[in-house]
């Protein structure tokens, strides 16, 4: 469904992506792992067109992701941002129903609100949260609202950027379980960016290890621990010794 071929991206002399090759089949949950600053977020932003790659090809369902109707293309995606990226000026329900109140997916206001409350309930938030503003919510609640927004229009493809960053282990577990449940329930194709190994084990069907601008290893999550790949082994064990430099 999503295929990246030799995708490259540099910022001045910093070559972030040096030739990414990755395939995410339809309905699969792919988790991309790697250290901080290795270009994981740039990778998913390249697919969404938020960052323009310098070279390479990104295909979604065999079609070039950079060409064609952008609105129709983006309407197929949902995205949970690392910090939530909720709009401060809008109440929670309008954040969740943002896509349902504008553009090609526009619905009547009451219907959009109803769907938003239903999605909030789906991520474990009570309806009274709907009229509060993002600044009034805890970090965990903001992540849940971000998740509700990502699934509000029932997209075919969902991206999760560091879904558990900044959360305590219990809340991280809750978010991981929610993501897994929703992904299975919706049958969506997903890409998750993380360096949290508990997220990997809960969410992933397949894992891709990004280091030094290329995918060092990719395979089923069940094979991750016995992969024999020195980069992946070091990352999974959290050891300072190995091919990945501890000080970058």
């Amino acid at each position, binding site marked *: 469904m999503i295929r990246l071929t030799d995708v490259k991206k540099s910022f001045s002399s910093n070559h972030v992506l040096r030739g990414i090759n990755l395939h995410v089949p339809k309905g699969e949950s792919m988790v991309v792992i790697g250290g901080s600053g290795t270009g994981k977020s740039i990778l998913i932003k390249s697919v969404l067109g938020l960052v323009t790659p310098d070279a390479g090809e990104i295909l979604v369902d065999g079609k070039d992701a950079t060409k064609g109707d952008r609105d129709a293309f*983006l309407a197929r995606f949902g995205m949970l*941002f690392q910090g939530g*990226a909720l709009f401060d000026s809008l109440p929670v329900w309008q954040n969740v129903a943002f896509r349902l109140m504008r553009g*090609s997916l526009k619905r009547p206001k009451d219907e959009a609100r109803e769907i938003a409350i239903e999605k909030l309930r789906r991520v474990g938030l009570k309806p009274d949260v709907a009229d509060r503003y993002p600044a009034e919510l805890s970090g965990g609640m903001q992540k849940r609202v971000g998740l509700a927004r990502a699934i509000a229009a029932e997209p075919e493809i969902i991206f999760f950027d560091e879904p558990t960053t900044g959360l305590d282990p219990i809340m991280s577990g809750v978010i991981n379980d929610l993501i897994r449940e929703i992904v299975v329930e919706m049958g969506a194709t997903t890409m998750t960016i993380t360096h949290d190994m508990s997220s990997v084990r809960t969410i992933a069907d397949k894992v891709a290890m990004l280091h030094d601008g290329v995918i060092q290893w990719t395979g089923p999550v069940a094979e991750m621990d016995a992969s024999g790949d020195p980069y992946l082994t070091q990352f999974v064990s959290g050891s300072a010794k190995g091919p990945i430099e501890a000080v970058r």
Partner: protein
Amino acid sequence: MSILAAIGAATLAFLASIGRIAIFAGQTVSHLIRPPFYFKEFGQQLLQIGYFSLPVVGLTTIFTGGALALQIYAGGARFNAEAVVPQIVAIGIVRELGPVLVGLMIAARVTSSIAAEIATMKVTEQIDALVTLSTHPMKYLTVPRVLAALLVVPLLTGIGDIIGIFGGFLVATKTLGFNEAAYLQNTADFLQSTDILSSLAKGAVFGTIAALMGCYYGMNSGRGAQGVGGATKASVQAAAILILAANFILTGVFFSA
């Protein structure tokens, strides 16, 4: 680096920023005339830029009008021309001080607020979120702000002109001994429609500059709190300088000859 090279680099950087701002303005116009239009956001900006700026505009212009009356009276006394206070206050406020002060107050209040808000949205990935939600940031953020400023700042300028003249009227009639009816008559007789039109036109241009600079620097801010602070500072500086430069040009266009 030699001095010439440094001057050359600075000149190139300056010209490049003018080019980027011109492209940004062109993109804004292009989005202004193409749907979708976000009327709710436009309405909110009319309130934010127009209604909520009234107190600062009113206070600025009333004090300036009053001070101007005192200055003209004191200066005019040197050559027995104290009687020209109503005329000079009117022309000074309507042609120059009204639009310029309103423009600068809008730059201080609105440009800074727009730049800080949009820059914060950028560093917290809210701009990226808008894109992923199939909403163009230029249409949703820039167009409503620039259009609202274009329409509402001339109105604020007109109100500022009236309040400024009223400030002069208060000082002249309550402390300098001018007759109220004669003061108003002199003001009305002396002002021409060109004076008022130039004032409103300047307001439209200054409002557009103020909103455009806030949006441009917000959208192009650096990372983190320092990026937001830098964008806010740069936007107000650019808006203030461009407003004063535009005022010089517009004054030449309207009143030279």
